[in-house]
């Protein structure tokens, strides 16, 4: 794993602006689907566009593939302006949502389709298709038609078909959308492994944050045609720039409050529920209102109502779900506010907190993050 990351970093070092999206805009009669988006992707990077349906992520992907023409802006790939190239002249291939395999062609002919259009000699096509079948482990299925394959196998054919032409950029449109959960988790890692092996630059569109975080080096959270935040999965999760991102990625408890102490290395925020002592400084004036985001897994529970000077709330357990690896609690505070807490089940014999029990939830200063926007 470390080796592949290192190898990838080397490729990436060569071309930091391999794919450049410059002020791309797409309007459909009055509706702005993509609103002046800028993005630079490194060579060899796996980048995810994450957002709920209608956020513009698919439109952006389709503009990269060439199916939609941007209203304004430029797309530059490896130094070449491809904004006005038709899809069949772009060095880009796409793996379609639900795959779009040709039902009348065999697995072999599906994979060879793009190569034949290039006018590649037959012997070379055969060699390349064999390679691809090896890569996705479908060699025995070369003569089958798509409808004779399982969902997972179809997905691998679609991947092989989109890799066969060795595109400069690979686009994946909801690559796991049609697979069931168990298969999805395994396939995500397998897919990333294959992409690293080939060293491809790749843009993934997904509405599934877990998928984006599992597969991508960096991701962009999209909403209403704009990027809300771009960063590594860790950055976006631990330092969300706004309420939407904090809420969209993972689950979160948001507290609105007022800045009371503002020091370079810490700050204190008074909320109706408690005083937050946060281990990082903020840029702002005393008395300004802001939001504190606190992830459920960063909170600890103690039985009984304990006194803490800060970073703690007292309440009663109103819901509990045992999820195997962790237990999720919902704690109701005297103000009526509910707080979500997850406790990792490190011990098989851990006594759970009963429904209705009084508990204290508390956390470290390094647990919460302040959202100014």
């Amino acid at each position, binding site marked *: 794993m470390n080796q592949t990351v290192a190898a990838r970093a080397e490729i990436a070092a060569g071309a930091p602006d391999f794919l450049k999206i410059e002020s791309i805009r797409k309007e459909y009669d009055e509706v702005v689907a993509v609103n002046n988006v800028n993005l630079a992707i490194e060579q060899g990077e796996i980048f995810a566009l994450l957002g709920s349906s209608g956020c513009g992520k698919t439109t952006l992907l389709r503009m990269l*593939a*060439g*199916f939609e023409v941007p209203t304004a802006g430029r797309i530059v790939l490896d130094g070449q302006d491809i904004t006005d190239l*038709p*899809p*069949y*002249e772009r060095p*880009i*291939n*796409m793996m*379609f949502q*639900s795959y*779009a*395999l*040709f*039902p*009348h062609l065999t697995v072999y002919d599906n994979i060879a*389709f*793009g190569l034949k*259009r*290039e006018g590649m000699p037959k012997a070379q096509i055969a060699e390349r298709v064999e390679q691809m079948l090896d890569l996705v482990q479908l060699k025995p299925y070369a003569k089958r*038609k798509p*409808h004779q394959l399982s969902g997972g196998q179809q997905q691998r054919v679609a991947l092989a*078909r*989109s890799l066969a*032409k060795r595109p400069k950029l690979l686009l994946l449109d909801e690559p796991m959308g049609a697979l069931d959960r168990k298969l999805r988790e395994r396939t995500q890692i397998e897919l990333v492994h294959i992409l690293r092996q080939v060293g491809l630059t790749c843009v993934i569109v997904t509405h599934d944050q877990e998928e984006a975080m599992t597969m991508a080096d960096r991701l962009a959270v999209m909403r209403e045609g704009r990027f809300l935040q771009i960063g590594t999965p860790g950055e976006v999760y631990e330092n969300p720039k706004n309420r939407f991102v904090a809420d969209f990625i993972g689950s979160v408890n948001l507290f609105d409050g007022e800045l009371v102490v503002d020091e370079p290395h810490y700050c204190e925020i008074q909320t109706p529920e408690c005083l937050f002592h946060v281990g990082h400084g903020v840029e702002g004036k005393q008395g300004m209102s802001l939001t504190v985001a606190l992830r459920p897994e960063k909170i600890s529970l103690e039985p009984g109502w304990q006194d803490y000077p800060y970073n703690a709330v007292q309440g009663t357990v109103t819901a509990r779900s045992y999820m195997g690896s962790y237990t999720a609690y919902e704690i109701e505070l005297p103000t009526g506010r509910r707080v979500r807490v997850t406790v990792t089940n490190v011990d098989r014999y851990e006594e759970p907190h009963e429904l209705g029990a009084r508990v204290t939830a508390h956390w470290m200063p390094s647990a919460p993050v302040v959202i100014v926007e």
Partner: protein
Amino acid sequence: MMRRSWMPSGRWFVIGVPELFLFVFLLLPFLILLKISFSHADAVGVGFEPLISWLEEGTLSIKLHFDAYLSVMQDDVYLLTYLSSVGYALLTTVLCLIIGYPFAYFLAQGFPTLRPVMLMLIMLPFWTPFLIRIYAWKNILDVNGLLNQFLLWAGIVDEPLQLMFTKFSFMVGMVYGYIPFMILPLYANLVKLDRRLLEAAADLGARPWQRFWLVTIPLSREGILAGSLLVFIPAVGEYVIPELLGGISILNIGRMMWNEFFINLDWQRAAAVTMLMVLIILFPIWLFNRYQMRLMEARR
């Protein structure tokens, strides 16, 4: 164990009605014709001798006369007429396909708002009797018809063209009459065409015409076959169009059957001609069925 009811259920009734209809109006007349084709007129001259009779000595006699078939096969004119009819039917099918395919494609993949209007335009002629619609072509194609008047007025020709009772007028009528049967199955097929497959083809480097040849055409094969059969089969035995628009120079099996039945009054021979035509038509139907069975098995 479920007790089986001997009462006819609703399910049997629903299946039974069309079966009964087909039996009374298709199989029964067919069997009567089959009998006539192997029979001779009886002594009185109004009916036909039975094929199977019970002789006094206690023997069952089955008498099949093949002379009608032999006379049909020995006379070249029948063979030529069959060939000519099949040839014209094929030509009609090809013309309907060439004209109907783009039409159906546009209907299925073009502007969805135009679809109801265009479908209506295809169906509308069915509200007028077929015979009258074909007769209307006479008014257009006649020496004094609309088309000739237009050509004279526009100065394209100096004297009216002889369009009626030619191969041209015949094919105009055939294509006009049969094209809806090509367009509708093609439309039903093309409307299901997944546009993402065309996008996938474009993504993999296929230019527009390559997408059409490599994706659209192969995927609409069933529609092409169904439409072609729907045109070809009735076109072989068509009677009204060759009679009204074709003229005597066009050899046509439908007209030949009419002549044998109602002019020569040779029912045995007419029945034999009919039976042979049914054989000719059964062959493509059999091919199509086999193809569909294979397709269904492949999908299972």
